């Protein structure tokens, strides 16, 4: 397999992981709104459903993007596809 094909395969793998995490926190947990509300897990004392909609999921998305960017940079470096500074 060519270097480029390998690079793309790893990139795709990272995409699936990223989208899976994204799916859980943007769609998955909101299938269980009522259960979250009744849950005894109460971050900072807020009902879990309320907390996830106003801070939880939002904060996770921020972290997720930075994590994704870091991993993708590693993949690019591994295959020598990083940009040169002067590009």
């Amino acid at each position, binding site marked *: 397999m060519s270097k480029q094909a390998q690079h793309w395969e790893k990139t795709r793998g990272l995409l699936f992981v*990223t989208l899976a995490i994204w799916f859980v926190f943007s769609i998955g947990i*909101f299938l269980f709104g009522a259960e979250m509300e009744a849950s005894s897990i109460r971050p900072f004392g807020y009902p879990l459903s309320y907390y996830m909609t106003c801070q939880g999921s939002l904060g996770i998305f921020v972290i997720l993007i930075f994590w994704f960017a870091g991993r993708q940079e590693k993949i690019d470096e591994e295959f020598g596809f990083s940009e040169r500074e002067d590009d």
Partner: protein
Amino acid sequence: MFKGNFINNLPKIYGTYTGGFIVFIILMAIAEQAGMSAKVIGICFVAFTVLIYALIGYLSRTIQVDAYYLAGRQVPTVFNGMATAADWMSGASFVAMAGGIYFKGYGYMALLVGWTGGYVLVASLLAPYLRKFGCYTVPDFIGTRYGGNLARLSAVIVLTVASFTYVTAQINATGTIASVALDIPFNIAVYVGLASILMCSMLGGMRAVTWTQVAQYIVLIIAYLIPVFWISNKMGAGVFPHLMLADEVARIAELEAQFGLGDVKNSAADLKQVPKGLSGITKAHAEVNTTPWKFISLAVCMMAGTASLPHVMMRYFTTPSVKAARRSVGWSLFFIFLLYSSAPMLATLSKLSLMDPNLATGIIGKSISEVQAIDWYQNWNQANLMFVSDFNGNGTLELNEFFMGGKAVVLATPEIAGLPYVISGLVAAGGMAAAMSTADGLVLAISNALSHDIYYKMINPKAETAKRLLIARILLVLIGFAGATIAALEIQGILGSVIWAFDFAMSGLFFPLVLGVWWKRANAQGAVAGMLGGLAAGTAYLIAVRSGYPGFLDITQLTFGIVGSVVSLVLMIVVSLATKAPDAATQKMVDDVRVPSGKAILGRQH
């Protein structure tokens, strides 16, 4: 100041600017103590900030194509994040969002999740690849990737429909704020707002818009956070509201039960007296009050719409590298998060201020005549944003007898909570910044698509630089005027049309953009069918629902993008597979887009 190593000096320049703005706020506070009237303070805030933006716009003027379309591709990661956040957070986010949360609670907060989760899609599916492509506009990508003027034209059509729906709402918002702050009639204020918007973008295109948007972000975030922190501390609710309002949320639920929320329904005759656009509290503050599907379908539409709206995507074309584009998405979302996570806190503080009889500001349970004598009630009643009426004739204000406009949550809460007027002036300046920055991004997205993709690429490919930029500027002014003219008619509310814009963009552009990078087999015929078919299906569903068709699967006029995008996806796959595969050169182009190194597909000048 804007010459030489301007880019290296950015932290210093914007640091000075932020310091200067804070000094200005302090000066205004002193002037207020010295007896300056509320009206003059409001005028000073809006006029001063707008003049600064205009100055930045003037200093960033340019006669180069890549500076006009791409800000010279040298906007550093963090600053591009701030500019994107301002570009993104519209008058709706700033003025209407906290109000929506206040009235509709959990069901409405699907928008918070959708408008942030979409950035994960932007970062992972699109932004870095489109940056590598090197396009000037989103249709530029579609036109080059799929080949052919028809694909390019279809993309321009979808872009124009979505962005124009959005921009009228923004110009409307600038008009509303300018008319209140400067005390002029709305249909004149709309054009004052328009003039301010054009001053920021006309001379310098993307370059000028970038540097004004950074300045506007700084103003809007200061204007949003100061009241939230101040009110929270003043009320004794907590030093850091975001982590400390759990008791207040619980207290609201307690009061809702005490005041019998939902027990008493207002009769239709009573509701007729309430001025249009005002609503009462009818939904519980923090309870799950909607079905999972309703929540998720709205969130999904907003997420896919985020990834398809051209004025956001084009911000990532301005970064120095692919790597920077990726990180810049993270910074954008961080800066957006600062405001979005504060909106529910503001809604909580605002509601508790009004409801809690233990607080001096609480009005529920007081006598009607007492409430009607309060200064701020009279002001906001006059502005048509507040209303009380003694429906049951017991002389006391009940929860179901108090009505407020959504905008009042942001605009009036500082005054209700007893903050000095200088804060209200600051909030007006923040709202103006939010609406202007988004309007600028949108007007530029439309006029760039028309000038670059329609005029230069399709009508007159031999046009010289000077002529191209002249056409671009003329179109900018024309689009702005068209938007202002429609805004002056006041057809639709701010928030409704914003949500429609997301659904339009999602219907026509989401899959053609994503598959352009992720599916090599996608071809021009498929993309054209996907764009036009998706847009047509979505629009048809919207019109049908608006004219009484009950719809299916609980898809409403706010989520019609689901219909559009599914049709778009199916058409794109079926038509692509039924027609010839893209040629080798196109396949090679897609391969090149997928790796960050190497030259951009489209050069700096094209």
